[in-house]
Every structure is written in C-alpha cells, then in structure tokens.
C-alpha cells in the first residue's frame, strides 16, 4: 500500500509513468475515495472494476443519475436502490474512450431535484471547505477533495454550477445538444445537460472534450459548428440590469461580483450594463417547466418493470403505495407541483405562461449576445448554506436558481468560475456565451480564475486533505 500522500490524479499519473502497479493504483484509489466519503458523504458507490490498458488514463466521477452498466444507478433514490442499468450513458462511453476511468458514483439530490442541497435518500454531502456547510453535490465535494480530475453531472436549473460555486470549482453546463443525454436519468429533459466540473478550466475543457459530440440515438444532440471562438483581445461583456436586486443576494457575493467587474475593466475588457427585465421570472419559469416535465418523465417509476415495488390490493393501490413510499419528500412535492401546474386550466395559466417566458428569455439573451461576447452574472446569490439551514432556508428554495436557470431556459452554455471568498467559503461568478462557444467561455474562465485566489487555496486544501 502506498502512502496516503497523493491525490487520485497523482496516483493515476504515477501509474501512467509505471511508477506504481495497477493493483497499487486500485487499492490506493479505493482507500482515498473511502476517506473522502467518510469525511464528506460524497459517494454512493465506488467503481474498482475500471479497465486499464496502454496509454494515459484519468480518474473521473459521475453523478449517480448517469447510467453505467454493471454499476448501480440509484439517482439517490430509494426507488432505484438495487437498480442496474442495462446500458451505459453515451457521454460516459465517449469519456471512457478518451481515457477517463470512473472511480465512483457520487451523491446527489434525489433525481437531481432538491435545490442543490446534495441530499439523497442515502446521505447529505458535506462541503470540504467547511464541514458544517452543504457541498451541493457529491460530485463537487469529490472533486474539491481531490477525488478525481473531472466530475460529470447534470445541470437542469443550475445544480452543477451551484455546487461548483459552493466548492470553489469550475463548472460548465454545455450548450443544449452538445452532450448526449442518453443514459442520463434526467428530470427536465428540455433544460438538462450533462456538464463537467473540475478544479481548473483546463481540466473542465478536457472533461468536456471527453463527453461531447453527436449521438445518432439522441436526436436532441447537435454537431457543434466550427468558428465559435471569440477574439479575446476585443471582448465585450454585458452584466444584467438589476442583477443586484435579486432575492437573497448576500453582501459578500455582491462584493465578489463587483470586484470581478472591476478586475475586468482594469484588464481593459469592456463591460456594460444591459437591459434585461426577466430576472425575477427565471427561477419560477424554470421551476414550472422542470416540474411538468419531471411529472411526466418520472411516470415510468410505477413499480412494474424495474425499481422497487410496494404491493397493493390492486393496480392503482400499488402505484400509490410504491410512489408514496419510495420517492422522497422533495421529489413528491415537486412532482405534485408539476401535476398541478399542468392540470386543467392551470396548463394554460402556468405551463404555457412559463413557455412564453422561456421564449422571451431566449430571444432577449440571443439579442444581447449579438452585441456582447459574454454575459456575466453571479452564480448563486449566496455561498454554501449551513447544514443547519438545509430545511428552513427560503433563499435555498426560491432564489438559488435565479442566475443559473437562465442558461438552461435558453439552452446556452454557461460556466461558473471561482472568483473570491466569503470568509472561508468560495464564491463563483458565471459567464454565459453564445451557442457552442464553450472553448471561448473556458478561455475566459481561465483568465478570470487566474485573477482569483481560490484555485491556490483549493490546492492547499487538497494537500491538507491528502496528508
């Protein structure tokens, strides 16, 4: 057994340089991952069956709503406690071909529904920066703690970016259609994308390269057009009017964002305020659409063909007992909300209203992106909430998605990058780009991260952890 003085990434590098054997790699990996899990509740399962052939390999983790054959895929839910998918997500298959090796499947809000608490049926993930705070997801905690080079997770209303922001990471939600969703057990198909989080913009870019690309069996995927790069020397960035009037925005997050704007203009990057009247509507719009889609998407969990079943006196009784007993409280609330929002005349009043907002938001952002290369926003109005606030924070319920869900509603790529601190806790800012401008976004993210002290302290933190 090796000494516990290396991150998983270093172990994989040692293995690629033939400094350690395959057996040593696996044993050390498991050892470190178990430690990360026992500290932060980051994992739902470990994968020690990865194959290692010639060539460099890179450790990755994936949220447990991404199907990987021969491993369990629980979605953090009791209903899938014993579920093994008969197929692997296309994005993961691609990543494996690129040399990524899955070391574990990470904890998440049940089905991804839970306002970025990182709370599943099994556990609640703690933040490596401060164990009395939420991490947002097991993926974020695992990466922050040095458990892998890159983490793959879904982002429907902003969960991936919020968790990355809570944990001082770079997190990217790609353009809708860049990454196949086949094998992702998503809850909001029109909003959701598999994205990447990593400690640096470069690793994020590397992870993205691993998973993106056309999938002939997911018709919503698209080939990225060429020439989406932007000229970094002539960049124009817009920030949205009334960004600072958002519900739940803390003084510290506001300060970090203002500092970022200042840093940009000192670097001679043009920043303008742009009119955008929809910020008060984004969270509710995404919530209604996500709820209606999840009500429909999760209807296949009926106890008949897979998953847990609780027997009943007759069919309807079985449905009710199974879904009542095996879905968690937040999922049930959200599905009920979706049923309500689409029922009878609510369909027009709320669901179609939300679709109308969505089109207006899309049009407005696309209009802005004709003039500006990026739109800059805070990622979350607040920093990682205290564990003790988990069940009684109205901000968490209502305001967490305000800044992030814009990109989901418009299908645009967005990246969060650590930009500063609120005390001990990192704060992210977010950039939204034109469709398929991920390369430019990540270039910009790298520039921003270099101006921030977060990455350095993240490295220090990881070293402390692995010692």
């Amino acid at each position, binding site marked *: 057994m090796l000494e516990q003085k290396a991150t998983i990434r270093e172990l994989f590098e040692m293995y690629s340089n033939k400094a350690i054997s395959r057996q040593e790699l696996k044993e050390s990996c498991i050892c470190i991952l178990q430690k990360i899990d026992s500290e932060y509740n980051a994992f739902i399962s470990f994968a020690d069956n990865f194959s290692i052939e010639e060539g460099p390999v890179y450790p990755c983790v994936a949220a447990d709503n*991404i*199907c990987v054959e021969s491993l369990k*895929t629980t*979605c953090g839910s009791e209903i*899938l406690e014993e*579920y093994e*998918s*008969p*197929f692997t*997500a296309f994005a993961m298959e691609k990543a494996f071909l690129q040399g990524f090796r899955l070391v574990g499947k990470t904890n998440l809000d049940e089905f991804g529904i839970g306002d970025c608490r990182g709370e599943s049926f099994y556990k609640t993930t703690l933040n490596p920066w401060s164990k009395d705070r939420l991490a947002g997801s097991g993926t974020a905690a695992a990466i922050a703690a040095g458990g892998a080079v890159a983490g793959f997770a879904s982002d429907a209303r902003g969960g991936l970016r919020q968790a990355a922001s809570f944990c001082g990471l770079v997190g990217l939600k790609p353009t809708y259609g860049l990454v*196949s*969703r*086949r*094998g*992702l*057990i*998503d809850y909001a*198909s*029109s909003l959701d994308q598999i994205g990447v989080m990593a400690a640096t913009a470069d690793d994020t870019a590397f992870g993205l390269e691993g998973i993106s690309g056309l999938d*002939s*069996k*997911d*018709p*919503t995927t698209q080939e990225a057009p060429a020439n989406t790069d932007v000229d970094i020397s002539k960049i124009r960035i817009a920030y949205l009017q009334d960004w600072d009037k958002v519900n739940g925005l803390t003084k510290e997050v506001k300060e970090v964002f203002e500092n970022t704007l200042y840093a940009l203009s000192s670097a001679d990057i043009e920043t303008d305020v742009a009119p955008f009247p929809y910020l008060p509507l984004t969270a509710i719009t995404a919530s209604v659409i996500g709820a*209606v*889609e999840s*009500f*429909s998407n*999760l*209807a*296949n*969990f*009926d106890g*008949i*063909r*897979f998953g847990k079943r609780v*027997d*009943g*006196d*007759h*069919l*309807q009784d079985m*449905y009710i007992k199974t879904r009542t007993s095996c879905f968690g409280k937040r999922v049930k609330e959200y599905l009920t909300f979706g*049923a309500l929002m*689409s*029922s*009878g005349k609510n*369909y027009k009043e709320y*669901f179609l209203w939300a679709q109308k907002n969505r089109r207006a938001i899309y049009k407005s952002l696309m209009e802005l992106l004709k003039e500006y290369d990026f739109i800059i926003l805070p990622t979350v109005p607040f920093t990682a909430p205290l564990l003790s606030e988990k069940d009684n924070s109205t901000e968490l319920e209502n305001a967490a998605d305000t800044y992030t869900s814009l990109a989901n509603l418009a299908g645009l790529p967005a990246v969060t990058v650590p930009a500063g601190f609120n005390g001990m806790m990192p704060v992210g800012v977010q950039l939204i780009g034109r469709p398929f401008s991920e390369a430019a976004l990540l270039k910009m993210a790298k520039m921003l991260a270099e101006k921030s002290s977060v990455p350095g302290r993240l490295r220090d933190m990881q070293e402390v952890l692995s010692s």
Partner: protein
Amino acid sequence: MKQFEPVIGLEVHVELLTKTKLFCRCGTTFGKEPNVQVCPICLGLPGHRPSLNRSAVEYAIKASLALNCEITEYTTFDRKNYFYCDLPKGYQISQFFYPTGTNGYVDINVHGEERRIRVRQIHIEEDTGKLLHQGEIVDSADSEVDFNRAGIPLIEIVTQPDVRSAEEARAFLQKLRTILLYTEISDCKMEEGSMRCDANVSLRPAGTEPLGQKTEVKNMNSFRSVQRGIEYEIDRQEALLQKGLQVAPETRHWDENKGITKAMRSKFLASDYRCFPDPNVIPLFIDKSWVSHIQKELPELPESRFARLVGLGLPAYDAELITSSKELADFYDSAYEHYKDAKALSNWIMGDFMRLLKAGNLGVNESKLTPDNLAGLLSLVDKGTISGKIGKEVFEEMFTSGKKAQEIVSEKGLEQISDSGELEKVIDSIIAAHPGPVEDFRNGKTQTIGFLVGQVMKETRGKANPQAVNQILTEKLQ
C-alpha cells in the same frame, strides 16, 4: 320516417407495417412469445432516449394522401400522460397538436347511394403493451403484461360524424381497408388487432342539427362485430330516448358472445392528459418534396383503377371484384399487358383462378400461375391450338406446376386436330360404327349430329377442333 337519426364517428387504429418500432429498432412481428421484442426504449427504462423511425412518418403520409388529406408541414411528437400498466413510460407519444393528415375523405357506396365520409385527421402514435389476463385489470392483484406490441407505430384515422348507420360504418371500414391494403402500409387484420375500430355513437331527433349525447363503443374485432355493435348501440340508445331517459356519456364494451354493449369502468385519471411536445423528440419539418415523392410512389388506388378497368370494357361487377384486392388487380393488369381481351381475362380470373385459390386457401401470389403464363394460355385457346375445354385442364396444371401452357400442350400432345385429312379418317370410322344415328340424321333428325360430334371428340380425346368436325360431318352426311 324514423324518429331518430344516428350520428356516428369512427376512430380507426391501424398498425403500420414498418420493420421496426416507432422510437426504437425492435422488431414488430405479431405473435412472438411475450417480451422478446423489447429494449430499454420501448420498456421505458430510466435514461432511454427515443429516436424517430422516419418510415413510420412516410407510411402515415402515404395513408393520408390515399385518403385525400392535406399534409402538415410541421409536426411535434407529444406526450399524452396517463398511468396504466400497458403503458411503459407513463405517457403515450402521439401527434396531438399537428396530425400528419387533415381534411380528407373516403367515398362509399351503400345500396347504390354515394356517400362521402370526411376524415378529420390522421395522426401517428405508439401502440401499448398487451395485458395477458382476463377480467378487469383495476381489480386484479396479479396480472402480466407483454410489451412486444408497445411502441409499434399506429396511425389513428378519425372521421367526422358523417356515418349514419351501422351498415355505412361497415362499408366505410371495408373501403378504408381496401385503400390501405393498396398502399401496403398495414396488413389491416382485424382479427390480429392490426386494425381496430372504435365508434362514437349518438342519436338525434330526425331532421334536427344539434348532436345528442354520445357513447364510445370499443372492442369490436371484426367487420361484422362493428356492424352488430353499432346496431345494438343505436337500438339501445333509441329505447332509452323513447322512454324519455338520457344516454350516459360512457365508454361501452362490445361483448361478441352476448351480442350486447356493456358500460366499462373508466380508466382512472384518464381525463386530463396534460399533452405537451416530448422534449426528447425534436420537431419534424415535412418537406414538400418528400410529400410529392411519396405521392409519386403511391400506387393507383381502387377508385381510379376501377374506372380504368371499366374503360377497358369490363362490366362494373367484374371491375369491382378485381379491384377489391391489390394483388388481384395487379395480376389482372400484368396479364392484360400480354392479352387484350379484357372480359375473357376477367372470366378466367374470376372463374377458374379464384375457384382454385379458394380451394387451396391460397393468396393471389401463392399459386404457381403467373400472369403472362395465363395470357399465353388464353392466346393458345384463341388461336385454336387447344380447345377451351382442354384449356381448363391445362390451366389446372399450370396452377400447380407453374409450367407454360405451350409446354404442357406439347408434352401431352393436346394440340387441337384441325387437319381435315386426319379428321376425315376418324369421322369415316364413326359414321361406319354408328349407322343408326346416321340414318336418323338423313331422315331429318338433325340433332343426332351432336351425338356423332361427341363420338369424334371422344375418339380424339377432346383434341379435335369441334367446328371442323361439325363441318366435315355435315358435308359427309348430306
């Protein structure tokens, strides 16, 4: 005049003959053992993604064109959300907002009266699984579901409430079936469920406009039961209305054995489907050039084919019978290319050919007889190479062996004897052998010539040319 007028609209589900299902590549064969034609997509497993089978859309366009519909230029595939154990995903994907075809019609003829039944729309949807049990599923604790059928593409053809009797409903369905069989998009087998018909039936006082309360009649699994089911339902509603009672809005189940419709327990939560476009299936633009390509490939349909055959000189009865099946009409047309006596051809096809097919329980293309071989046979008869009677024997052999007529005739030496030298020898011997009839003839009983001709035919085993025999005999007897 009747007191009440029935108003009937039909909803016909037709399973498409695509090789694979609507959103996955599973097969569509009927009658396989349960749950072998399934995959994560048609089982609705978590994380599955549907991908549209474009040939299903092509088939739906074909059907829509054949039924005179306008074709939509844009469509979405929408989720109709409800829970039922035969519905794997908890929703059925269907063209709810933009049907493939709209505003079509089918013309029918009932007792010589031409009626136009308007087709409101034709849309594509997925079939459900099949329950493997008897009785009411909602009350049953244990039941099994076969998902082989789940996800097979269907089109639903919805008519306007233009049908006025059970007989018209049946005539419409039969005409619809014939047309669809021509397009080859479905095998339309009611007994296997690849064609299913539900009827919305209501009554209104004769001569009035407003529609009465309707019921929906389901589970009519043959043309006959469609007619019987609707007839029963009309009578049932009429009896209620005459007593001053109201018709309840309900779905009723046709019970074939008892010959009655029964109120069905409604599916729970079935009223609010919350339809919205499936975000996993992208909208489809139906290109005009695609439609015109399909239009060009559309076969000649029964009505224009009928008119063409009548134009060739066939009686309407023959033309109707021959165009009632595309295979038969195709057979006729290919034979006609080589043999231009339209009526003689239809006589042979409707007579001997149909008789032998029926006896062998064969389809038109399942016998060994080819259209050009049939044409060859008829030409031999016309040329006098063989007699009509021998022709029928040759036909039977062609039917089973697939040989050409000429080949059979040569092999068996069946050529008609028209050579007068050869015939004279035979005729002389017959005259010598039958002095009685010969005497009678010469005494004026001319009908005895028939007997003598018969003897010659017998002697030549039917090969003698009867006209020639007649002529020579008459000359010799005078």
